[in-house]
């Protein structure tokens, strides 16, 4: 084996400098080529979620995106109007809650113009796998299809509402309702839905 470079100060500084510069260059290059796919993946994810929660639309919801303060000032929610032939068929709302078992949860929820929930889709969560993570399951989500918060209470049954909580994950279920409630009340306050 070739003789090792001696551990003098100059050698050490130079070695680390060269390694860092080469690494930084490689990272910058890869960052520049992956930047676009990463952004597209993000956009696609949101667009897929919007498509899933509102009826068929023909506009580009991203162009008409509105950012609105939540009704109680607890943050901002994003509203994507879905229109078909110029007529509003629903609103996809990116709402959130901080009350999850694992903290922050982001949910895309679709409302029809009369305030009925069309569908929901969880965008991001850190709930316990196998328990709270079941809020992404069809079994839990399907009860919100056609749910109108004006007629039914958006609270879990345990607390006197009309929502079936997930077994052994009441906190996650409450958080889910909290996020939906935030979206509903905000849209109502803004006069977007009845």
């Amino acid at each position, binding site marked *: *084996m*070739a*003789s*090792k*470079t*001696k*551990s*003098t100060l100059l*050698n*050490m500084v130079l*070695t*680390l400098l060269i*390694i*860092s510069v080469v*690494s930084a260059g*490689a*990272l910058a290059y*890869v*960052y520049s080529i*992956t930047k*676009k*796919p*990463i952004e597209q*993946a*993000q956009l696609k*994810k949101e667009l897929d979620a919007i498509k899933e929660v509102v009826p068929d639309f023909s506009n580009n919801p991203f162009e008409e995106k509105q950012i609105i303060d939540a009704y109680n000032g607890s943050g901002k929610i994003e509203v994507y109007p879905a229109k078909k032939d110029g007529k509003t068929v629903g609103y996809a709302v990116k709402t959130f809650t901080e009350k999850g078992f694992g903290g922050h949860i982001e949910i895309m929820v679709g409302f029809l113009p009369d305030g009925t929930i069309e569908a929901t889709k969880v965008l*991001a969560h850190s709930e*316990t*796998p*196998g*328990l709270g993570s079941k809020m992404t399951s069809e079994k839990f989500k399907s009860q919100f299809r056609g749910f109108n918060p004006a007629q039914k209470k958006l609270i879990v049954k345990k607390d006197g509402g009309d929502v079936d909580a997930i077994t*052994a994950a009441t906190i996650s279920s409450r958080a889910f309702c909290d996020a939906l409630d935030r979206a509903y009340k905000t849209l109502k306050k803004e006069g977007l839905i009845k």
Partner: protein
Amino acid sequence: MNQWQNFLKGFIKENPVFVLLLGMCPTLGTTTSAINGLGMGLATAFVLTMSNVVISLVKGFIPDKVRIPSFIVIIATFVTLVDLLMAGYTPALHEQLGLYIPLIVVNCIVLGRAEAFASKHGVWLSFLDGLGMGLGFTFALFLLGSTREILGSGSILGYKFIHGDGMLVFVLAPGAFIALGYIIAIMNKIRKA
């Protein structure tokens, strides 16, 4: 040691998870399902192989006193590359593994092989060592992930074969320890037989 043994030792004889017990954090944390274990294992295998190769190439230029910082920078670079590439091209898997990808940097198995093997051997042997160890790690994570998924969710690779829930404890953290313990016991029996 011939080349084959060098490559194969990572699977059974010196398996990083079952025998060396290195890299326990991602092992226990990400193996809630078979596919998560596989993804995490392959990401680590890539980092391990690449960092072994690069380190064996530059080992002659690196002064002894700064070798660990140099290794860490090289490893961190590859981890960030994997992170960016996965976020761009496999967003679904990236979301599942999330936090654990950056943590490959501090996975002791990567620095361990760099220090114990790549800094003393040539490029080809280091490549085989990294690949063997990486695939051994992948094999271990896949096995653990499958076990936990079968027992905990009653499914394998996402295909459900029972109605309702499995034994929930296996999906949660304690189940990871229990399953790992039994697998290690079985592996010890096999190795000594």
